[in-house]
């Protein structure tokens, strides 16, 4: 296994390995995938940390995210500017949080951020309605959507403010048996 790669310096790779749940090989592979999205934009040589961001529209063409109804929200959550333009660091962070070895607490934090559409640190009824609509792609009638949202809030809301704070959400997720296996993107 020779150190033939010139994409990253050793310190960079070490830093990535420390901050994320990926190995060296996986980080290099991720860089390849990142570059694939916009080959003219992303340089092969990342040793001097260029400030390149790939826009949202290109990121959501990835096959792992293409069919996901929450793809826009996922990319927006992990982007620094909040508009969905990911630098390579954000890109790696995103897939690291969604990978298999990522712990439950981290996934819960990010899940909450993803489902919070208006970014007010609460999942209110409108956020829920958007979620349900994205999940069922408009197959439920509006009354049914309202009913589902009311029931969901009723079940999970423990402090009685008719919206879900992070602790409510966390409490509900802790009882869900397949959250960890479902909230997992394989790259």
């Amino acid at each position, binding site marked *: 296994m020779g150190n033939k790669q010139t994409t990253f310096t050793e310190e960079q790779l070490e830093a990535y390995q420390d901050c994320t749940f990926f190995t060296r090989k996986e980080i290099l592979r991720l860089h390849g995938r990142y570059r694939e999205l916009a080959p003219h934009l992303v340089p092969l040589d990342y040793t001097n940390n260029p400030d390149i961001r790939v826009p949202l529209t290109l990121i959501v063409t990835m096959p792992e995210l293409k069919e*996901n109804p929450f793809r826009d929200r996922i990319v927006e959550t992990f982007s620094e500017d909040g508009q969905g333009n990911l630098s390579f660091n954000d890109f790696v962070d995103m897939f690291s949080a969604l990978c298999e070895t990522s712990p439950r607490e981290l996934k819960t934090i990010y899940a909450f951020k993803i489902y919070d559409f208006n970014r007010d640190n609460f999942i209110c009824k409108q956020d*829920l309605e958007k979620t349900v609509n994205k*999940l069922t792609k408009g197959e439920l009638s509006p009354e049914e959507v309202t009913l*589902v949202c009311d029931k969901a*809030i009723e*079940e999970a809301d423990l402090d009685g403010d008719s919206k879900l704070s992070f*602790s409510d959400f966390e409490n*509900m997720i802790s009882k869900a048996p397949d959250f960890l296996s479902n909230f997992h993107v394989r790259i």
Partner: protein
Amino acid sequence: QVQQMQVPVVSSTESWNFGGGVQSYFLFLRFLVVLNFVSFLLIAAFVIIPSIVFRSVGSNLANSTPEDCMEYNPNPQGLEVFYNYFLDLLSGTGFMEYSYLFYGYYNNTMVEDRNFSYNIPLAYLFTAVFYFAFCLICIIAMGTAARVAVATGGSAVGNYSMIVFTGWDFGCLGDRATRLKQKNIHYRLQVDLEEESRNKRAAALTLCQKIVLYSLRIFMGFVAFGLIIGAFYGIFEATNFSQGILGLIIEYLPSIVITAGNFMVPLLCDQIALVERYSPSTTIIVALLAVFLRLVSLGVILFTLWSQITCEGNTSSGDCELCCWETRVGQEMYKLTLFDFLINIAVLVLVEFPRMLVDNWSNKLAQWLGRQEFVVPSNVLGLVYGQTVVWTGALFCPLLPLINTIKFFILFYSKKITLFNNCRPALKTFRSTTSTFFFLVVLLFGWGLATVVMVYSLAIHPSMGCGPFRFFPTMWSIVPTSFYNLSKTTQEFLFFIGSQAFSIPLFALSVVMCYFIALASVYGKSVALLRAQLKLQEGCDKKFLVKQIEELSRQLQISKHNAGVQD
């Protein structure tokens, strides 16, 4: 090979595509394949192989009083046209009749060597009895295992927030899988929504509407009942009609009528249920009705056979020509099994495969027809029916468990292929925690019916001309006969064990002990599961409360600080 049978939909990425009921179906089918295979090994070891080995060796027990039907030789004479072989293969007559497949071929040989003696009739009888006991033990063992899940209730189904937030599998790739997943989530939500709206509607009915609804239900009940009676009568007539006339269709007439009845009546009941707007749980009860239909239709066939065997008391009439009635019964069971298998394969190939092609080529037509659903209850009932037929016929057709093993094995893989290529997730989600237990209870009904048949056959007069029990007044009488051949001390010991003073308390005690052991193990498992759940819950709740306290105290401090600043 059997151990490698992979039950589909076990992986987490696909487990919610089709619902847990499908998984239970395939687990059940795998259990049946293993059961049949092990029973076949049992029968082969104790009956078939000794029969083959000792066919030429050994002496026949002779009887001095000649009677009718002493000669049994159904081998065909003269030239045989080729298609007759095919007919014989399908109906178990001709060259297949006088073979190891059926009871009539086995001799009542008793081998007596220096240190070794083997009594084939005794082995045959004991193997049959042990086979039934073994199947019962297996079913009860599986049932106790499934009971644990029922006792602890399983995970909460219908929890809206959980479906909304954790329902989507982020690892879901591909257009088709995504669409399926969406449909599945939609259905899961809809099942609960439907239940809610139905309850609301039911509560809002006026008295007049209620009366109309109930009278409609009673009327439909009568219609369904009438249809079932009609189906039974048809089976009865068909079985009577098929005797004494050659021709494949006529031979298969009972099977055809049963299968037609089994298709039509549940279909009609389904339509009726739709009319009456029953909830999904009530349609499960309709499925139970189909169970009884299938098993009792089998009972009707047996009844007609019985009336022919006993010739309705008239042994000297010209119509009574059954020389080897056991082979006749074995043939009927063999035909039922074969026909059931052929129909299943035919339905898969001729109905579901074209539907898949239609789906792939023309979206509009597919939307109109709708994709084939994998309906778990009716498939399970098909399995239970097939297994009951095999149990009933095993005494008369020793190779039937082997045929059934092959049949279920092929069925497993074809259903698996059908599931993944054709079917969409079932509309009515089937709770998987209770379903395995339910399947085994139904299987137990079938076992009961087969046991009744076996016990009855042991008690009536076997044929004179064929089989290992000729010259005995009943099949069971071989046991006392060979008993007196044992040594004196063994006889006394067995007498003591068998005496009422000893055996009845022992039997009662062992039954009670078994019951309590099973109960204790089930409760022990439930306790362990509940304890684990409690620990998890407690930890989570504690964490939540601690966080709340922190939050509140922080807010209190902030408001105090603000009040202090204002002052």
